[in-house]
C-alpha cells in the first residue's frame, strides 16, 4: 500500500504539478496567440518576445519596488511589479499596432505580410530586451520558495517519497485559473467582449452592426498585454528568467493554439495542457514510478525515458504534425483551408 502511495506522490511532485504549472503558463501564452489570430487574423512571431519583454519590464519594476522597501511577504514582489508592467506593455502593443499592423489591415494585406512584419517586430523587441536587461539570466523570485517542501513532508508523513510544491507552481495555477475565468467572463458576458467575438467571427457583419473596429483592436492588444505579462512572469518565476528561453516557448504556444484550433480560447487551454503533459510524459524517466507500481520481478532496468529532455519541444512539433494530419482545424476550430 505504501508503495502505491509513494508512487502517486512521486508522480504528483514530478509530473502532475509541474505539468499543470507549465500547462497554465503555456495556456496564458497560447490564449494571446489565439486572440491575435482570432481578431487580427495572423500568427504573431513577436509573441514570445512580448512575453520576454513583459517579464523584463516586471523585473525592472520589481527591483524598483524592492528598492522602496515594498514586499508581499511570502508571495513574490513581482506580482506587484507585474501590475505596473501590464499598462506599459499594452501601450507598446497598441503603439506597434498603430504604427504597423493598422496600415496592413487597411490595405487588406495577406496573412504572410502580417507574419513578416511581426518578425520585424520580433527582431526589434529582441534587441530592445538585450539593451534593457542584458543577455544573462536573472532570478527574481522572493518570498517563500516552497509551500510544501520535501523534508517537511517526509517528516510529517513518514513516507519515502516527498511531496514538493513550489510557491511559483501553485501561484501559476491559481493565477491562470483566475485569469482565464476573467477572460471568459469578459468574452461571454460583457458588451465589449461580445462585440470582440462578433468581430472575430464575421468582420463585415460586425462592422455593419456598428462595432468600432479600432476599439476592438485596442481591446485585443490590452488583453494580449495582460496575458503576455502573466505568462512571461509566471514562467520566469517558475524557471528563472533568461531572455532567450522565451523564444523556445513560441513553438509550444503555437502548437497549443493549433491543437486547440486557432482562434478558439477554450481550445488554447486544452491544447496547452495536451502539449505540456505530452512534453513531460515523453521526456519523463518512468523507472522509479514503475518500480513502485509493478511487482518487484517486473521492475524495469532502463530509465524508461522515451526522449531525452533536450527534445522537449520536439514533442510539441510531433503533436502539431499529428493534428495537421488528422484534424487540421484543431480540436475546437472551424475547418479552415
Amino acid at each position, binding site marked *: 500500500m505504501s508503495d502505491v502511495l509513494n508512487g502517486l506522490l512521486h508522480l504528483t511532485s514530478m509530473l502532475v504539478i509541474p505539468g499543470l504549472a507549465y500547462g497554465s503558463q503555456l495556456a496564458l501564452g497560447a490564449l494571446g496567440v489565439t486572440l491575435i*489570430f482570432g481578431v487580427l487574423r*495572423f*500568427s504573431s*512571431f513577436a509573441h514570445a518576445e512580448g512575453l520576454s519583454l513583459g517579464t523584463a519590464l516586471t523585473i525592472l519594476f520589481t527591483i524598483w519596488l524592492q528598492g522602496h522597501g515594498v514586499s508581499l511577504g511570502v508571495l513574490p514582489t513581482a506580482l506587484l511589479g507585474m501590475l505596473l508592467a501590464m499598462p506599459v506593455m499594452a501601450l507598446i502593443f497598441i503603439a506597434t499596432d498603430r504604427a*504597423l499592423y493598422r*496600415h*496592413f489591415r487597411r490595405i487588406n494585406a*495577406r*496573412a*504572410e*505580410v502580417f*507574419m*513578416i*512584419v511581426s*518578425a*520585424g*517586430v*520580433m*527582431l*526589434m*523587441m*529582441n*534587441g*530592445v530586451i*538585450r*539593451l534593457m536587461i*542584458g543577455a544573462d539570466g536573472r532570478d527574481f523570485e522572493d518570498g517563500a520558495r516552497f509551500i510544501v517542501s520535501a523534508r517537511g513532508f517526509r517528516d510529517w508523513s513518514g513516507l519515502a517519497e516527498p511531496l514538493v510544491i513550489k510557491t511559483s507552481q501553485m501561484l501559476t495555477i491559481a493565477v491562470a485559473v483566475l485569469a482565464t475565468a476573467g477572460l471568459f467572463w469578459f468574452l461571454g458576458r460583457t458588451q465589449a467582449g461580445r462585440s470582440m467575438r462578433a468581430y472575430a467571427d464575421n468582420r463585415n457583419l460586425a462592422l455593419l452592426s456598428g462595432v468600432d473596429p479600432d476599439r476592438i483592436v485596442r481591446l485585443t492588444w490590452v488583453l494580449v498585454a495582460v496575458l503576455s505579462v502573466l505568462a512571461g512572469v509566471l514562467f520566469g518565476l517558475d524557471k528563472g528568467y533568461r531572455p532567450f528561453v522565451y*523564444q*523556445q516557448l*513560441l*513553438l509550444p504556444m*503555437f*502548437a497549443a493554439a*493549433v491543437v486547440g484550433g*486557432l482562434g478558439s480560447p477554450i481550445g488554447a487551454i486544452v491544447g496547452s495542457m495536451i502539449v505540456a503533459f505530452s512534453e513531460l510524459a515523453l521526456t519523463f524517466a518512468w523507472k522509479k514510478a514503475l518500480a513502485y507500481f509493478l511487482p518487484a520481478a517486473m521492475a524495469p532496468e*532502463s530509465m*524508461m525515458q*522515451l526522449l*531525452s529532455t*533536450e*527534445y522537449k*519541444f*520536439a514533442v*510539441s*512539433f510531433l503533436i*502539431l*504534425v499529428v493534428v*495537421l*494530419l488528422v484534424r*487540421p482545424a484543431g480540436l475546437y476550430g472551424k475547418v*479552415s*483551408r
Partner: protein
Amino acid sequence: MSRTVLLYAAMAAALLAVGLLQSWPLALTILNLCLISVVMALGVNVQWGVAGMFNVGTMGSAAAGGLAVVLVSAPPVRAAWTTGGGRLAIAASILLATTALAVVIWRGLSGNPLLRGVAVAATGLGGVLLAQHWFLPATAAIEAVDAASAGYLGGLGLPVALSWVVGGIFGAALAWPIGRLTAGLRSDYLAVATFGISEIILAVLRNEEWLARGVKNVTGLPRPVPYETDLQAAIWVQDLSAWLGWPLRDTASVLVKLAYAAWFLAVLLVIWWALDRLSHAPWGRMMRAIRDNEEAARAMGKDVARRHLQAFVLGSAIVGIGGAMLVTLDGQFTAGSYQPLRFTFLIWVMVIVGGSGNHRGAILGAFLIWFVWVQAETAGLWLAATGATLLAPDNPIRLALEAGPAQLRYVLMGLILVLVMRFSPRGLIPEATPEPPK
C-alpha cells in the same frame, strides 16, 4: 534598369571603400559571406518571391547543408563504426520497421479512428523502447571513441565541394515531407511547421554527439582551396607580396579568400542562371500566376499544392547549398551557432529589402543587408566612442551605446524590415511587371 546598375555600383563602391579604408582581408571576408547570403536569399526568394510561401525554417535547411559537409568530407572514424555501427544499424532498422508497421496499421484501421490512434501510438512507443535497447549503448560506445578529438562516426572523406550538392539534397529531403504535410493548408501552418522543424533539426544536431559531435563542434574540415601557410611558402606568392608591398600574411590571406570567392561566385552564377531560366520558362509564369491569384490559377487547372511543394523543395535545396558553403568557408561545423534570428529572419530581411520576386533584387538585398549587419557593429562602436566624448560618463544613453553595438543591430534589422514593408513593400529593385498585351 539604370536604377539596378546604380544600386549595384553603389554596393561595389561600399565594398571597395571597406578594402581601402579598413582592410582588404576584411572586405573579402564580407564579400564571401555576402555571396553565401545571396545563395540563401535566392532560395528564400524562390519560396516567397516566386511562389508566395512563408517558410520560417531557413535555419534548418542551412544547418542540414552544413551537416552534409561533415558527413561527406570529414575523415571517417573507423573505430567508431566498428564499435557502434552494427548496433546503430539494428536500432535504425527497428525504427524503420516500426514506421512501416505504423503506416500499415494506420491504413488498415481507417474505419475505427480510436482504435487506430491507440494502436499506432502503442506501436510507436514499443518501437522506440525496443530501439533504445541498441541505440543507447551504441551511441555511448561511439562517443567514447577518442572523445576529445572524435567521438562520432566521422564522414566519408570525399572532396568537400561534393558536399555542396549533398547539402542541397539534404535541404530538399527535409523540405519534402513538411511541404507534403502543409500543402493546401493555410499559410500559418506552413510557417509554424517550418519553424518547428528547423528548431528540431538544430536540437538533434546539438545533442546527437555521435552524428556530428554536437556542441563540441567538428573542426578542421577539408577546404577546396590551399592553406595560407602553404601559400606563404610558395615563391610566386612571395614575389607577388613583394611587388604589392603587402605583408606576406595578408597576401596569402587575400589569395585564399579570393579563391573561396571564385568558388562561391561560380555556384552562385549557376544557381542564378538556372533560376533565371526557370522564371522565364512556363513554370515561372505559372508560379507567378499562382502567387498573384491562386483561385484563378486553380480554375485554369493548375495543381497549386503540387507547384507550391516544388517551389518549397527547390528553395530549401538552394538554402542547403548555401549552408554547406558557409560551413566550408568556416572550416568547422558549430551546431551552437545556428540561431533563427541570424539564419532565418536575417535572410528574410535580405529578400524583402532587395525586392522579392526578383532575383536581382534578392541578390542586392543579400549584399546590402549582410554589409549593414557586419558594419553596424563598427558603426555602433564608433558612435559609442563619439558619444563618450559628448555625453556624461553616467548618461544612460551612453551606457546603452557602449553596451550594445552588437545588440543595436537587431533593432536596426527589425526597423529596416518593417520600414521597407510599410513604405516600399516591393523593395529596392521591384519585380518588373510584364507589359500587358496590347
